[in-house]
């Protein structure tokens, strides 16, 4: 009998040796005359266990990990292809606490299927949302998304249905759907995991968006740092065209939807939607003034939907199961689930998709297992490089847009980066200013000049120079950035800087 095995093709798994492990398994199987069907799946998102090898058994999939090439021979000795016991055996994958406690809607298939196999996508409920959408009026598709309560997962948390409605109601010969796959935030990788682990779900979500608003062309603006995602997307797009899911007449509906991947070039600011459109138009990524809104005058001056990968990848299940189904998860005005990314100094870093409402403490300790170094967790940065640093006293805040806003913090794209007590918050504040200076598009003075000035001030503060003058100067500079910046790069750099200063004044050499 042929044994079915799984070794992830996710780039984090590869970064820990998954390709070598896959090769070693094939080699060893051949040596021993065992016939195997080795599938490269996406990652389950438990990165402390990667490379995580799974085998199909009558009881279900059994996991082994973390597997290195040196373990492969002993795994075969233990008859792992039949689920045999081994020091690395973790039991049934689905029974692992970390996974079992999650509510995977957007990530339902990731780690389970072969990401670029269309048949497997369809066998696991793929394209049911599109099938429904094809039989719905445009306004009803938009209504389902509005009813779901989905808010943009790229950072600003704007209601997706409202954005789509504006584009639907702005007449034009040509409209566009742009997927923002620039994922520049440190501590985030959920977009990457979707594109590498289930690219069809993004393609389906964009196709539904196109039908909903009447856009026949989509672009995925992908950061160049993601070569594996690029390959998975282009492979999946080719297959979707070949099978009639993309093209001049989507599944014979007479409605066209075309899709193309475009690569960014290492500019963080190009994740900002108007800068992204400038870049797609072949220009420098200078942020545009708003209004006009992209929904009215966007790419090449046409009405354009710009949505994050996770926002768009959440659309198929909404159209499959209904807006209510999705809305029933979550708390307050944060509806549905959020794929949370646990990163930095944590024992069990990974992807945790859950309804909004879990506290940071539960995430850091119940899921994350505390710090990787075994030292106390001192601070957590949530929401990427423009997100605030939270001290232990705020770890009981539930993950919810409004609860975070109330403590002057942001959920953003859902990245959670933990730091142990060796972290120097003044150095991190300096880095925030430096990052702003490096990535500033240069359009407004506070951001362009202020960030460099902020770095110099932080250098002085770190050196202990004239704190009674320099700390107030830093605060007033942050005020200028907050109020005088065109976009959130300049406008939110004060979040990490001031939160570090306010919560950890001792690191800046000042009294609490």
């Amino acid at each position: 009998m042929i044994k079915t095995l799984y070794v992830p093709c996710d780039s984090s798994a590869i970064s820990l040796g998954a390709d070598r492990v896959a090769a070693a398994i094939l080699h060893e199987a051949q040596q021993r005359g065992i016939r195997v069907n080795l599938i490269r799946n996406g990652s389950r998102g438990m990165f402390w266990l990667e490379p995580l090898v799974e085998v199909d058994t009558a009881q279900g999939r059994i996991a082994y990990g973390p597997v290195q090439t040196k373990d492969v021979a002993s795994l075969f000795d233990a008859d792992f292809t039949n689920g045999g016991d081994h020091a690395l055996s973790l039991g049934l994958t689905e029974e692992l606490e970390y996974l079992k406690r999650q509510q995977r809607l957007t990530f339902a298939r990731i780690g389970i299927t072969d990401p670029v196999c269309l048949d497997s996508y369809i066998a696991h409920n793929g394209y049911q949302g599109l099938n429904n959408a094809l039989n719905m009026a445009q306004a009803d598709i938009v209504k389902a998304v509005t009813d779901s309560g989905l808010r943009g997962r790229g950072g600003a948390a704007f209601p997706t249905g409202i954005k789509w409605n504006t584009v639907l109601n702005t007449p034009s010969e040509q409209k566009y759907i742009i997927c923002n796959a620039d994922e520049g935030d440190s501590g985030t990788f959920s977009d990457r995991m979707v594109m590498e682990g289930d690219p069809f779900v993004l393609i389906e979500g964009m196709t539904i968006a196109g039908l909903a608003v009447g856009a026949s062309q989509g672009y995925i603006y992908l950061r160049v740092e993601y070569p594996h995602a690029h390959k998975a997307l282009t492979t999946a797009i080719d297959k979707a065209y070949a099978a009639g899911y993309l093209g001049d007449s989507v599944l014979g509906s007479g409605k066209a939807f075309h899709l193309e991947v475009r690569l960014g070039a290492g500019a963080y600011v190009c994740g900002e939607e108007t800068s992204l459109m400038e870049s797609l138009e072949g220009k420098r990524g200078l942020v545009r003034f708003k209004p006009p809104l992209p929904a009215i005058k966007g790419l090449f001056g046409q009405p354009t939907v710009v949505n994050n990968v996770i926002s768009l990848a959440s659309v198929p299940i909404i159209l499959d199961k209904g807006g209510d189904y999705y809305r029933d998860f979550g708390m307050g005005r944060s509806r549905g689930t959020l794929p949370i990314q646990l990163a930095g100094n944590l024992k069990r870093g990974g992807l945790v998709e859950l309804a909004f409402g879990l506290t940071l403490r539960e995430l850091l300790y119940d899921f994350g297992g505390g710090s990787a170094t075994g030292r106390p967790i001192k601070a957590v940065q949530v929401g990427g490089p423009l997100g605030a640093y939270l001290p232990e006293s705020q770890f009981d805040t539930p993950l919810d847009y409004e609860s975070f806003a109330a403590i002057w913090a942001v959920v953003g794209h859902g990245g959670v980066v933990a730091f142990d007590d060796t972290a120097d918050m003044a150095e991190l504040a300096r880095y925030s200013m430096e990052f702003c200076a490096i990535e500033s598009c240069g359009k407004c003075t506070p951001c362009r000049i202020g960030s460099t000035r902020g770095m110099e001030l932080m250098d002085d503060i770190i050196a202990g120079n004239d704190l009674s003058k320099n700390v107030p100067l830093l605060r007033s500079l942050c005020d200028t950035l907050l109020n005088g910046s065109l976009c959130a790069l300049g406008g939110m750099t004060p979040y990490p800087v001031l939160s570090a200063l306010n919560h950890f004044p001792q690191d800046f050499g000042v009294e609490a």
Partner: protein
Amino acid sequence: MTDTSTMLSTVQAIATALKDKPGALLPILHGVQDTLGYIPADSVPVIAKALNLSRAEVHGVISFYHYFRETPPGKQIIQLCRAESCQSMGSKHLEAHVKAKLGIDFHETTVDGAFSLEPVYCLGNCACSPALQIGTDIYGRVSPELFDELIANTEAAA
């Protein structure tokens, strides 16, 4: 043909193939850099002409984006992540080690032309920090010892 004229005809071919795409400049610049390893100054007029832009406009775009380079890289480009998650797991220590080991700073190339070192702001490998990439190969939980091993393997393979 001289090296320059080969280069120019390569650039011309890339520009001709892509120039009719909407917003063609970035795809063309990627095409050139993928093929030649960088975007030579001499290629700018060719690209500008194909797209009906001024040289200054093309140059302005090249210089805006960190990824595009105007000088030839070493045989391998090492991209070391400087962002927060990697900092939380000791990337500054790793960075100091890498710079000392290679004898270069960011944006420089070793004298033997083997490696160029570039900073990168997140590789999406933040659950396995600190991370770096050598060429297109990504690595996670990179210790100074692992880095030395990777470099030795790369050199042996070269």
